[in-house]
Structure formats: structure tokens, C-alpha cells
């Protein structure tokens, strides 16, 4: 009898443990509630009609100058920071915070204010408020409080702010509305400056491209910020941020080496270009959208912006703006227009 007692207790323990292990931890509903991240409604029909962005994804919008990249990013920001129902009127926004890294220095506050103003007054008119009673200020101030801007004038400042902003990002994500997305204007802004920096002096294989190697190499004293190291560090920081806070990142990129060249003489793919970003950044990007501007007359020589904008002096036709999804690959070419309210889609065409 006494020999069986402890054995029976041990068996009961084991049974208990097995039953415990077999019981479900949580239901599917609880799991979704814990891990589900709202997809981002960017408010940019170029993106929304094709795909939705979720946390952890990185969209790169690449184009030559003058195609509307900064306007597109501001449009996304405006859609995110507008409130939902506010003072009785639904403004259709997400009332979420947005962090904008301005590396180019071209973020214009007046443009953002105009976009917000246009949308707010349109919603108020739709809700039936007569024109003389429309007051955009409360909704505008409410939206502006959710817009955050960081101006960086060098890669060093960008890396320093990415590193230092981690607690601030946590605070924004925990705020009501949450953090909708990170916007970076022109990741290729400091390309030439970083390329001019020389690699670590002794050992390490020399040169700009050998810097991403062993960890001891990087901790060597006086390691400057070369192009490869900067892009690797930016990619690593963004990945770390996305692990903590599940947000999508939308980055614009200025295409420095447009593909079409007049002197070549052979037909080249107008959408091809030599990428100025290094491999760590390219591995981080999950979606790519390319924008292009063409002049619709026969006197245009070459594409990619070099002949395009300046042939306008000849009185050529209006510029034709085209967009194409490169990653994931889509053959359709979309015509879009730029106006006060931002980017809007004109026509979806076949492959060109």
C-alpha cells in the first residue's frame, strides 16, 4: 500500500501535466486579436488598387526628378493623419501617427496644409455644412499633431536619429491611433557624399565594398561611414524597428542613373536603371514602384528626365506620367496625373 502512494501521486502529477499541455492556449480569435496588424490604406490609388501594405513590408518609389515622389509621400501622410469621425463629420482618415524622414529637404509644409485643407473642406461640403460656416482649423490642428518630421542633412544624422528614436517610436505606437507608417524621402540623397568617403585604412581588404565583412573590422577605431556600411546600417536599423513596431516603410528614391541614353542608339528598356543602393537595402525592399515622365512629342530625346523636362521649352505637348510596378512584376503601365490634391490615376494601360 505505502509503495503505491507516492507512485500514484507521481502519476497524478504527470497526468495533470499532460492534460495541461493538451489544453489549447488560446482560440484563433485571441491569436488574431493579438497579432493582427491593420493593413495600411495609403490613400494613393497607385498603390491601393494593386496591393496592400502591411507591417514589415518596405515599398520603394523610384523615379527621376520632377515626377511627384514627395507629393505622393505627402498624400500618404495626409491620408494617415486625418481623423476619422471628428466633431460629427467623418473625414475618412485613420487618425494615426506618421514619422517622416526628410533627407532631401524638400518637404513643404504648405503643400501638406493645402492637401489637408482641400480634403477637410470637401468632407465638410459633403456633410452638408454651408461654405460660410466651414471651419477647417480644429480638424487641421488635430491632424497636424500627428505628423512628425525629422530633417537629416547627412547619413550620420540619419543613423543617429534612427538609433535614438527607438523609445519615441514605441511611445508613438502605444499612443491612440498607433503609428501608421514610416516615410523616408529620398534614401539616395547622400549617395555621392557617402561614395566619396574612403574605406578603413589598413587591413579589411580596402575599398568601399569590402566593408561589410567581419565585426572586428567595424569596431576598429576611425571607421568612416562608407556607402556600403551606411546602407547596411540603415537596413539593419529599419529591420530592428520593424521587429519592435510592426509598421510598413515607404521610401522614395531618386534615380541617379537613368537608363535611356540618346547616344546609345539601341532601344533600351525605359524602365531600367542602374540602382544606386547597395545590396543590404535591396534585400530589405519588398515592393518597388517606378515613375517616369515623358514628353509626348517627337522631339523628345531619351527618357528618364534628361531630355524630357527641358524639351518643354520648345512648346511640346503636356508631360505624360507613367507608373509601373516592378516588384511584384506587373506588365500594366498606369498613367497618372499630378495636381493640387496629389497623385491620381488617369488610365491603366497594357504593357508598353
Amino acid at each position, binding site marked *: 500500500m505505502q509503495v503505491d502512494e507516492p507512485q500514484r501521486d507521481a502519476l497524478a502529477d504527470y497526468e495533470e501535466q499532460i492534460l495541461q499541455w493538451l489544453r489549447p492556449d488560446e482560440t484563433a480569435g485571441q491569436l488574431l486579436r493579438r497579432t493582427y496588424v491593420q493593413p495600411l490604406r495609403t490613400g494613393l490609388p497607385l498603390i491601393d488598387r494593386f496591393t496592400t501594405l502591411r507591417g514589415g513590408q518596405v515599398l520603394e518609389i523610384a523615379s527621376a526628378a520632377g515626377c511627384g515622389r514627395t507629393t505622393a509621400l505627402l498624400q500618404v501622410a495626409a491620408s494617415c493623419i486625418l481623423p476619422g469621425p471628428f466633431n460629427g463629420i467623418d473625414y475618412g482618415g485613420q487618425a494615426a501617427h506618421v514619422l517622416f524622414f526628410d533627407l532631401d529637404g524638400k518637404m513643404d509644409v504648405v503643400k501638406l496644409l493645402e492637401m489637408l485643407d482641400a480634403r477637410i473642406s470637401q468632407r465638410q461640403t459633403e456633410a452638408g455644412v454651408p461654405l460660410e460656416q466651414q471651419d477647417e482649423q480644429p480638424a487641421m490642428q488635430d491632424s497636424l499633431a500627428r505628423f512628425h*518630421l525629422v530633417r537629416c542633412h547627412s547619413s550620420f544624422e540619419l543613423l543617429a536619429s534612427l538609433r535614438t528614436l527607438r523609445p519615441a517610436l514605441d511611445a508613438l505606437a502605444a499612443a491612440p491611433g498607433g503609428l501608421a507608417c514610416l516615410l523616408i524621402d529620398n534614401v539616395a540623397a547622400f549617395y555621392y557624399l557617402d561614395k566619396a568617403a574612403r574605406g578603413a585604412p589598413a587591413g579589411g581588404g580596402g575599398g568601399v565594398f569590402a566593408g561589410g565583412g567581419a565585426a572586428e573590422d567595424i569596431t576598429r577605431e576611425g571607421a568612416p561611414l562608407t556607402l556600403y556600411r551606411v546602407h547596411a546600417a540603415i537596413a539593419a536599423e529599419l529591420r530592428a524597428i520593424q521587429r519592435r513596431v510592426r509598421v510598413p516603410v515607404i521610401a522614395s528614391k531618386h534615380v541617379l542613373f537613368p537608363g535611356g541614353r540618346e547616344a546609345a542608339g539601341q532601344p533600351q528598356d525605359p524602365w531600367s536603371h542602374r540602382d544606386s543602393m547597395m545590396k543590404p537595402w535591396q534585400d530589405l525592399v519588398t515592393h518597388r514602384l517606378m515613375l517616369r515622365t515623358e514628353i509626348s512629342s517627337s522631339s523628345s530625346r531619351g527618357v528618364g528626365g534628361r531630355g524630357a523636362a527641358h524639351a*518643354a521649352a520648345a512648346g511640346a505637348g503636356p508631360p505624360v506620367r507613367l507608373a509601373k510596378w516592378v516588384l511584384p512584376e506587373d506588365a500594366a503601365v498606369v498613367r497618372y496625373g499630378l495636381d493640387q490634391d496629389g497623385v491620381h490615376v488617369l488610365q491603366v494601360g497594357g504593357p508598353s
Partner: protein
Amino acid sequence: MSRVPKTVEAYLTATNVDALEAEGELLPHEAQALEALRAAAAAAAPPVLSGTDLYLQLAASKLLSTGCEAIDEHLLRGGLRPGQLVEVCGESGELAAGSSPQMPMPLELQLLRQPSHSIHALKHARNWGFLAVCANTCPYGPFAPTASGKTQLCLTAAATAARQAKRVVYIDTSNALRGKRLQQVVESLPPLAPQADQPTAADPLKFVEVRRCYDVHSLLQALDELLSHQAQQVQQAQQAQRAPQNSGGPAPNDQQNPGQDVQQQQQQQQPAAAMTAAPTAAGGARRRLEDLPIELLIIDSLSALITPVLGGGAGQHSQGHALLAAAATSLKAFAAGPGLPAVVVTNHMVGGSDERRHEKRPAMGESWRNQPHSRIQLCKGPPGSASEQQCTAVLRASPLLPPGISVPYTLGTAGVAAGPEAAEVQPQPMQL
């Protein structure tokens, strides 16, 4: 081998710091080092501005006029915005074959009929004293037949700002600025209506500080000095106000070329920022000029410095793009700094020829096209044709307006002024 990085750059690019921090098994000196690195990175990080701060900044800023109401109103939406970089491009003066100039041409342009791209070489040659004879031939500035008036626009903007007692820094790279011409523009501008909140300068030329930079490195050095001066002003503003003193004034900070003749030196001293004992009209506490924040920075012909170093080919100019990028970033960093100055930069046109005028494009290429906030092109009809006197300013790029809007303007003794038909003619887009 120490696990903790030794420099801030290494700390920012290191891959093992997160793991180190998470482990928590750091020796005390390592923890201290990490803490110091973190503090240094936090000090270097730019501040996060919220939309409300930006709105308040915008509400407190005032637009600067270029002096030409047509350009202000239709192309710039009110004037030069503080914190923005505006590029003015246009053709340089060129002597076309067979044309009879209406204004007396400087002797050097008559002696050497050169194509337009070496006008800058000519001007540089004048700097070195080789053609020093002609400095006084045309004291009111040569109005070459094809010159579109970029320097005149800069002079008008500087004169308008200086009249309102705003500090202007004028970086002149091709000796196009003459004290007498600036004086003439100041005197010819329409009289200012006195306003309560706007002080009027008794001697506007004192507020224009001229610096001469003849190569891109001295330009970068000048921009660095301006940036550090801005940072200093922020520090000083945080300290207590000093009592106004009647100091003798330090010598102007000009980049003097040893080869210049004395006459040009004297002309430089006149508009330079020397504080003399003359009483100012404002009364009250007299402030030193160095304490005023810079409100307008003008670089006449940035392209004259950059285009020689840009361009392909091996050799010493492979860093051209880096120098251009460094200049552009310094300019925008200066414009975004406290005080929010407005920055104006001029550019010339390259490519094409007299017959194929429409193929001319602004210099400095594709990598510069992205940098300025707004771009304005000044066009003048080809000499000898019916449209010679028609000058139009065209908007090439702007964050707020669609490109292609054009307005007429005229060149005269008061610099750039609105065109005669500006009242009737609506600004028309050149393309749909």
C-alpha cells in the same frame, strides 16, 4: 579585442551592439562607454518636429520679395519662402555676330568674341587682373544682348531686403557685383511705404555682406562658416542680451584675391558689412550687424564654380558630384537652420546653339535638378529678332504650382521689374 565600438560612427554601424545591450553582462567600463556613445548619438540626432511646430514656424515667417512683383506673385506665390532654395537659371551674356549693342560694352567683351561658355573664363580672367583695364568702362553693368538678367534679379532681391534692414549675404563668384550698381538699384526702387513692424534702413548697403569665392572649396568653406555662425547665434540668443556697443567693427570677411587692383577693393569695401559710427534710423539699441540673423543668402553663379569640376573623365575631377552634393546639402542645411533664411542660387544654360535655342538646358546636370525647391528660368528672345526685348520668366519646378507658368519682366536701372503689360496679361501656362 574590445567588444564595445570606439567611435560614434562605429557604434551606429555596428551589428553587435543590440546583442551586447540585451545580454546585460557588460563590465562597468564597457557600460560606461556604451552610455557615452548613446549620449553622443542622441546629441547628434536632429530634433523631431511635430506638425504643430511647423505650422507655428510657418505662421511666424515672412516672405521676402525678389523686387519684381510679377515673379513674386505668380511664380513664387508671394515671394521667397524662408527655408527654401530657389534656383534662377538663364542664359549668360554673349556677343552675337553682327549685332550692335545698345549699351556700351566693356572692352574685354569687344576684344575677344568668345562663345558663351567661356564668359565665365573671361570673368575669372578679369579677376586675376589680366584684363584689369576695363573695370570702369561700364560702371552700370554690361547689358549684353543675350544676358537674361540673373545677376540683376539677385541685385534687386538684395536691394529690396537690405532696404528693410534685413541682413543679406551675397556670395559673388564672377565679380558681377559692383557697389555703384547696387547703390543705383537701391535708389531706383520705388519708395517704401513706412510700416510699423518693418524697420527701414537708413543706409541699406550696410546690410549687404559680400564674399568672393573663386573656387568650389572656398565656397564650401564660406558655407561652413555661415553654418557655424548660425549655431553660434543660437547659443548667444540663449544667453543674456549684451549691452549694445559702438564697436569699430571687424574687417569684412571677404575672400580677397591678391591680384586685384585697388579700385575694385575700394568698391568692395563700400557695400561690405563694416559698422561705422553713423547713426541708424531705427534708434533705440543699436545692434551689431553680426548679431542680426542672416535672412537672405544669394550665390551668384554657383554653376560657374561647379561646372568646371563636374563632368566625366578620369583625373582630378572625379569628386565633382560629391562637391556638388556637399554644396547643395550645406545650402539646404543653412536654409533649414534657425532664423530660416531664404537662399537664391543662379545657374547658366548649356548645350544647343544660337539656332537651336530650345535645346539649351540648365547646367549642373541631373543630380542638381533634384536639389532646389523652386526653379525659375529667365528667357530673353534671341538678339536681332523681333522678340529681342521680350523677357519672360518661366516656372520650371515648384512644390506648389504646376510648372510652365510664365510672366513677363523688364530689365532696367532698377534691376528686374514687372513687365509693362503685367496688368493686363494673365500668367499663362506654356503647356497644358
